[in-house]
């Protein structure tokens, strides 16, 4: 069908919302509450347009197209209406841009600029709200909130958590946790997806940058860094590159220039995780252990199980996450080997994830009074650090990572995307159980961005049911079915964020599925071109077992690489 937009004929599809048509036709209409893929809420009215024959302006995000519609997207009336909305928003907003984490990257700034707002026309009563800095992962600054509701929707509809919601009414409306408690004691699982969708500086990560800079400036400290598999395929976007650019070598150089003494790869310990986890799965299957086994590398998911599904705690793999495993061997094996007092090591992790900050602070992750990992920076924080130090990535030559934890297989690298842990585990489980490599290393059924993927795989004559989930809303649905006995499954991989770590809450802001897909394709390409494509084939991991750990699930492993979980009472 055709419609007319600003005098031009534009093709529209039956049943779609007007906004979708306009976007496809390249007509830019500003939006605020709109979230692609979620049901339109029509709350902010930022996207209003004039439709011939309709009395009032209509919100294009929530208005279906119809044949021969005649639409004006930028008539004086429309522009005036949008301008008023934007003028009213900052009536209660601090003039804080200079000091704001979103300065230059703020949708409110952008709208005010685009609509040519140059003076404060409405000076509403400012009601300063208190900042919530209680969480190890997320900082909430309600003063900067414009009540678009995106955080509430992502938390409820994507993550199935609902830690926050609108509270109060009228001009006293705020986004609040239950009983207005700190986020740290709420049901928040620290995923940071709310930060990814927030248009302003009202939500941001709890930053560890200062601690890291202080450590780097302290000559007494030996500062080591590890970076997660997904960071090298997203960091470049912070510097304007298109999604899917891999800059692992350049990032290594940049980390050295920042002053880190050693640069390690979390994909190495992802391989280590696979050896432990595949062995654990084999052990559970052979000895009647608790099934389905569930992966444990995503800390948001772990807290989710602890507070909503404590009956499944025994199903979680006891393996620590790759971040924590590497932290543990850095302060034991590595410290010994290099003759460094572990007390002087500051272990930093660059992660795609805000929940990793929470994980690093879990009391279970401390040995002899020393945390496995001392500080966690998100991809965004690393980018800030690189800018702060004036490092120009374009001029850097790629470098190799350091021994003994710099070598990885491409299976470990796949951990960055949903399905990657499963794929890596299948490759190694097959080898452990049969002594042979999988004929077809690519496990297609667990690839791609679908929320829940299931497959049957046969290893050594045993048919296994496996499922791969991303987004905790999907995990909740699957767990409820498992609880009700509907699923015959042996192994479930869960990643908290949509798409897995490549869509993590610490990544470049925004949730564009095309960007996530591009990052995923890059990981698959790295795997396709890899020399070592199985975790058990990683020579550095083999060496670590030979020189230090002994065997998977052995005594040393239990002491350093495994952990436990406990039921959590939170206000759910």
């Amino acid at each position: 069908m055709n419609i007319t937009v600003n005098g031009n004929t534009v093709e529209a599809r039956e049943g779609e919302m007007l906004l979708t048509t306009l976007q496809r036709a390249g007509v830019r209409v500003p939006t605020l509450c709109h979230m692609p893929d979620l049901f339109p809420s029509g709350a902010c009215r930022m996207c209003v347009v004039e439709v011939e024959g309709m009395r009032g302006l209509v919100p294009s995000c929530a208005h279906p197209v119809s044949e021969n519609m005649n639409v004006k997207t930028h008539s004086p009336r429309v522009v005036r209406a949008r301008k008023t909305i934007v003028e009213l928003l900052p009536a209660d907003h601090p003039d804080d841009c200079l000091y704001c984490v979103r300065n230059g990257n703020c949708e409110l700034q952008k709208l005010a600029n685009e609509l040519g707002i140059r003076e404060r026309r409405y000076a509403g009563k400012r009601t300063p709200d208190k900042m919530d800095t209680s969480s190890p992962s997320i900082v909430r600054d309600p003063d900067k909130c414009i009540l678009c509701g995106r955080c509430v929707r992502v938390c409820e509809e994507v993550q199935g958590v609902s830690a926050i919601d609108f509270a109060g009414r009228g001009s006293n409306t705020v986004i609040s946790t239950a009983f207005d408690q700190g986020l740290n004691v709420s049901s928040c699982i620290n995923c940071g997806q709310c930060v990814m969708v927030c248009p302003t500086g009202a939500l941001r990560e709890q930053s560890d940058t200062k601690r890291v800079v202080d450590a780097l400036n302290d000559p007494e400290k030996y500062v080591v860094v590890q970076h997660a598999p997904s960071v090298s395929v997203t960091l470049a976007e912070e510097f304007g590159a298109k999604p899917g650019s891999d800059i692992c070598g350049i990032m290594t150089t940049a980390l050295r220039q920042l002053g880190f003494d050693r640069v390690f790869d979390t994909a190495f310990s992802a391989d280590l995780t696979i050896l432990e986890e595949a062995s654990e799965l084999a052990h559970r299957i052979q000895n009647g252990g608790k099934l389905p086994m569930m992966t444990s590398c995503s800390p948001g998911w772990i807290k989710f199980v602890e507070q909503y599904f404590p009956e499944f705690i025994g199903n979680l793999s006891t393996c620590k996450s790759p971040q924590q495993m590497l932290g543990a061997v850095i302060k034991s094996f590595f410290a010994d080997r290099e003759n460094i007092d572990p007390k002087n090591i500051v272990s930093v992790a660059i992660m795609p994830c805000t929940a990793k900050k929470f994980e690093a602070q879990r009391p279970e992750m401390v040995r002899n009074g020393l945390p496995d990992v001392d500080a966690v920076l998100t991809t965004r924080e690393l980018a800030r650090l690189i800018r702060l130090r004036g490092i120009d990535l374009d001029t850097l030559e790629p470098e190799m990572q350091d021994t003994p934890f710099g070598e990885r297989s491409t299976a470990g690298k796949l951990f960055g995307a949903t399905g990657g842990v499963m794929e890596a585990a299948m490759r190694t489980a097959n080898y452990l159980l049969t002594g042979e490599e999988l004929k077809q290393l690519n496990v297609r059924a667990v690839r791609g961005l679908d929320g829940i993927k299931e497959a049957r795989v046969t290893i050594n004559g045993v048919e296994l049911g496996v499922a791969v989930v991303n987004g905790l809303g999907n995990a909740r649905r699957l767990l409820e079915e498992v609880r009700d006995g509907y699923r015959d499954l042996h192994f479930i991989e869960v990643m908290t964020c949509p798409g897995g770590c490549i869509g993590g809450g610490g990544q470049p802001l925004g949730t564009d599925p095309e960007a996530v897909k591009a990052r995923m394709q890059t990981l698959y390409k790295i795997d396709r071109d890899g020399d070592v494509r199985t975790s058990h084939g990683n020579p550095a991991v083999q060496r670590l077992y030979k020189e230090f750990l002994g065997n998977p699930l052995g005594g040393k492993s239990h002491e350093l690489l495994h952990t436990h979980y406990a039921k959590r009472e939170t206000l759910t």
Partner: protein
Amino acid sequence: MTAIADIQTVLHKHTNAGRDALIPILQEVQEVHGYLSKEAVVQIGRHLKLPASKIYGVATFYNQFRFNAPGKYHIQVCRGTACHVKGSANVLDALTRELGVAPGETTRDGVFSLEIVACIGACGLAPVISVNGEFHAGMTPEKIKTVLDAYRKEAEGEPTDD
């Protein structure tokens, strides 16, 4: 644990209730307990399959719900027109300052709780406050301290059981 039993009794009356039963349930629970405790909200949430944040959000939309246990002395400040004209805003100010709590809250020692109410029908006594139902007429910021002190004395005199 009787508190939980009370809530269960209320919920029992609303077996198979949908989300539209939320407001009546909140009202009944507050009727029984005098306020909505965290425990109550969690129980109600389980019953109706609603997250606690959502229940809190809905409850804060209305003025009638309290989230703190009422104090030994529950002070209601009338904000009816007559009281307003005669300066109830200053009285409320003095109370919040003297008690260190906002309306809807309870002092740390549990002695006083504060609430704003619509006209309590004692316009002749404006501005008026009621303490556990006992009216105090013609209040001024100066008189507040005297009134509170009398109750404080009374509270100290009696050993409390909780």
